[in-house]
């Protein structure tokens, strides 16, 4: 059943990374409960543009939970009150009429604010570039049956590969740690024969890059796993720790 909501929005506005931001309060009315959270912000932005104001900048692309762009910290939680969804998959029926909703950007020194709710997540790209690949020669693909992979390993690798790089794990973590993201990107390769070859180097290089980007350490609170829209497990972090220790131990 469609309903309509009147809401008070407290949204973080910040011109760029070099100036301090502050909250602005907006009223929106007649918001359909069938809208997504992003569509609700679209409604607000339309009005701001018509009134000659600067619309709220926010990241979005696919609007179906697969690109990982829609970073928003809503009422104290990444991607809002529901588990297992991104902001674009969050419906307004999850809110009450008359509610005040606070919307903030991901806050981490490794994710500087570009504008309003948009943060720069290229630190993640540099972690991937440091080792999140397999080095294979180009040419014809070999017959897939040449590389038998146990079903369990394939499933686990696939579960890790579901990470969309959204950064909710960093946003949720009290230490702004990127261990869940990095461990997912390490695990998706380390579990497969193609990735085993470079596993030791990969763990060391990606962890070193993660530290250099200024993410915090892991306190094992499990907040990342709880807030991850793709349900990435912290078992991946334990695997990364194993890979990292054994690589450090045996590296030359």
């Amino acid at each position, binding site marked *: 059943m469609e309903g309509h909501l009147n809401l008070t929005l407290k949204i973080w506005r910040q011109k760029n990374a070099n100036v301090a931001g502050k909250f602005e309060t907006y009223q929106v009315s007649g918001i359909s409960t069938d809208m997504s959270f992003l569509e609700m912000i679209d409604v607000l932005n339309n009005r701001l543009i018509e009134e000659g104001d600067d619309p709220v900048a926010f990241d979005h692309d696919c609007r179906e939970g697969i690109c990982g762009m829609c970073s928003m910290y809503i009422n104290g939680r990444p991607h809002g009150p529901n588990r297992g969804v991104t902001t674009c998959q969050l419906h307004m029926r999850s809110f009450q009429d008359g509610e005040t909703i606070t919307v903030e950007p991901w806050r981490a020194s490794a994710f500087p604010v570009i504008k309003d709710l948009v943060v720069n997540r290229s630190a993640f790209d540099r972690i991937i570039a440091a080792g999140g690949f397999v080095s294979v020669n180009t040419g014809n693909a070999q017959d897939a049956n040449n590389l038998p992979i146990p079903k369990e390993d394939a499933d686990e690798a696939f579960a890790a590969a579901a990470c969309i790089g959204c950064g909710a794990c960093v946003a949720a973590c009290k*230490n702004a740690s990127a261990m869940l993201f990095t461990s997912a990107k390490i695990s998706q390769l380390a579990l497969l024969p193609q990735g085993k070859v470079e596993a030791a180097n990969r763990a060391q290089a990606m962890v070193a890059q993660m530290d250099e980007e200024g993410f915090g350490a892991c306190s094992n*609170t499990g907040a990342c796993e709880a807030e991850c829209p793709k349900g990435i497990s912290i078992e991946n972090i334990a695997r990364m720790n194993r890979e990292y220790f054994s690589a450090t131990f045996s590296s030359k």
Partner: protein
Amino acid sequence: MAITGLFLISFLLVHCSLNALIFLNDGGVAFNEGAEFMGTNPVIRTMEIVLFAGLLLHIYDGLRLWFENKSKRPVAYAVVDGAANSKWYSRSMGLLGTLLLLFLILHLKHFWYFSRLTEGLEDHTLYAEMQAVFMNPVVVIVYVLGCISLGYHLLHGFSSAFQSIGWNHPKYMPTIKTIGAIFSIVIPAVFAAMPIAFYFHLIQ
């Protein structure tokens, strides 16, 4: 962090078992014999040095991580719903550890200082000293609070240490968590029972 934490856990097990001898209610005979052994055996005296080193390393690492991790989010969130995704004690290890540290300073002054650095043992036994110290209700309350801090520190720390060293396996983690929870409740409860028992003269 994990290695020193697990090492401190193994110490707690020994310390708690030995101290529990007071509950034999034999006027401290068995306990004093144990204390005498721990105070004179060269292997134990060497382990005491390792223990202090481990504790200092754990404290140094813990406080360093606490401050370093804090600095990774220079602009704080206005609204944080921490309870939605994690346990408060897992987010408060630095605070719980600091409370533990304050308790430990008092605790070491009471008993370690007394038995190792003063001539006190010549006048009366460690058991008698315990009886005397725990006549003060404020001390008893501080000790019980210290044990509660320890309980919550371990409730997160025990299984967290295994995760840190990479021992998270679907087959074993539930068992580790169960053992961790039992350990975190039983050990601090037995410790807390000691000052309480002395204060209320439940043991003589």
